[in-house]
């Protein structure tokens, strides 16, 4: 009951800003690839998000549009541990659990996004690494904050968290494009791409698209077998290893 109320209260300013649409401008956008297939030659992929600002119903001399693109991957609970020195040995501490950090998160904008909208607005929309909701944690505890920043730093190093202040480029007044690199270790699942259109710090329009990352072919068969029929998978692994051992022996013996 309480959660629904909070959700409604939270959603209100957004719906007022977008769905009510007192603004004549609209943003249209899509992703170059709706389905990303992971096969054995997968080493990461670059995706293109493109779109246009439809200002045909706006007063003729409007300009200064800003676009922010946010790509979010599926979330999974993560334990963040810090090592401490105990009797001369570095030992993992108990760690903190973040219930739902996104497995992938990228913000791309046409100029530094903190200059595009107010901090309050960015926080509401979850734009920027400092505003991402990681699930259960308290902002007030400085020790938790160090775990949170460690998670952001580690994920940034892996290319799973990205912020690009000049990631969106306009072609003329209306068309824009943005590219983002999905690294080799991207989690599989459903991704969303949210494109926000701003002018003078006001959210004018929003467009969401989705993207699926999945394993296909041989990789998919192995993956499904490993998780749905693990005993058969294990047995297959043992048999293959024994056969390879036998083959090696027959191929290499000299007499």
């Amino acid at each position: 009951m309480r959660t629904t109320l909070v959700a409604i209260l939270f959603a209100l300013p957004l719906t007022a800003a977008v769905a009510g649409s007192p603004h004549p401008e609209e943003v249209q956008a899509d992703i170059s690839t709706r389905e990303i297939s992971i096969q054995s030659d997968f080493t990461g992929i670059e995706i293109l998000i493109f779109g246009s600002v439809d200002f045909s119903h706006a007063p003729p001399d409007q300009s200064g549009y800003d676009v922010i693109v946010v790509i979010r991957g599926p979330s999974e609970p993560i334990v963040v541990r810090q090592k401490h020195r105990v009797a001369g040995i570095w030992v993992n501490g108990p760690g903190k659990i973040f219930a739902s950090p996104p497995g992938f998160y990228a913000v791309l904008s046409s100029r530094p996004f903190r200059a595009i909208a107010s901090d309050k607005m960015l926080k509401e929309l979850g734009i920027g690494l400092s505003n991402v909701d990681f699930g259960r944690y308290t902002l007030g505890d400085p020790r938790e904050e160090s775990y949170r920043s460690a998670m952001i730093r580690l994920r940034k190093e892996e290319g799973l968290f990205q912020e690009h202040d000049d990631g969106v480029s306009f072609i003329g007044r209306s068309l824009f494009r943005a590219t983002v690199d999905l690294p080799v270790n991207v989690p599989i699942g459903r991704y969303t791409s949210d494109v926000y259109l701003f002018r003078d710090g006001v959210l004018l329009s929003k467009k969401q698209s989705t993207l699926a990352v999945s394993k296909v072919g041989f990789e998919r068969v192995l993956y499904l077998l490993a998780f749905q029929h693990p005993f058969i998978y294990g047995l297959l692994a043992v048999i293959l290893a024994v056969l390879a051992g036998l083959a090696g022996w027959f191929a290499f013996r000299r007499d």
Partner: protein
Amino acid sequence: MFQVYLPIAEISVNLLVMLGLGAAVGFLSGMFGVGGGFLLTPLLMFSGIPPAIAVATGANQIVGTSVSGTLAQWRRGNVDVRMGFVLIAGGVVGALAGVLLLGLLRQIGQSGLIISLTYVAFLGVIGTLMLWESLRVIRKRRAGKSTPPRSGQHNWIHGLPFKMRFPQSRLYISAIPPLAIGAVAGLLASFLGVGGGFIMVPAMIYLLRMPTNIVIGTSIFQIIFVTAIVTLLHATLNHTLDLLLAFILVAGGVIGGQFGVRAGHRFKGEQLRAMLAVVVLAVALRLLLDLVLKPAELYSLVPLSGA
């Protein structure tokens, strides 16, 4: 170029690097009669494979190299099958206990630390003992003295009940010590992702007083069965086996293993033991340094569901 995506580990690795890694470990396996897991598991982790996947996949790779290693030893008449089956019986019990122990440690988040400490303790003690013993024999031989014959000597082990005859090893001893040795090896196999040869080989040489060449053939024979069971347990309970990675490692391993067996026959038993001791001590030192030196990164991220 040559990059391969691993479906369970979910990373991309270089095919040639992994083949080379398998071959190098297979070479040592064939040469010394050890599974090579105590090298493979840390090396996989250093190449960025998650530890839990390194352990399970390493065990599967050892199955393959042990098969070709055993065949090579078999032809030289170095496998005591009777002794092997007694060791396997103990190994199955130990492997199950190891999986349960690992599950408990994982719950409190200290499996990595305990695994490293166990590695350092076992490898350090065994490496030091083997190096000391083999250098002593080598020095004596250089001085022209003959080594005292060991077979036929009696120790406390000969007082135990349930005696069995092992004609190939020229032994008539209780079944309890080989069962216990097999159980300890099985425990380490599932807990550390190793074959357990590094503890079985010295135990059979020094406790059971088996001839060194038969010890090597028999331990590698036992390792096939124990690592096969460990592979199945990890695949079924933890979903941490990467079949594609295992296959690449096995392919490299069987080739390296054949050359290792031949290389091993150029050296005397005590020379082999001295070389193995140096390798064992080097791995122990590396693991110890990782525990003692301040890590470059104090924080680590682990999925809650995973290991």
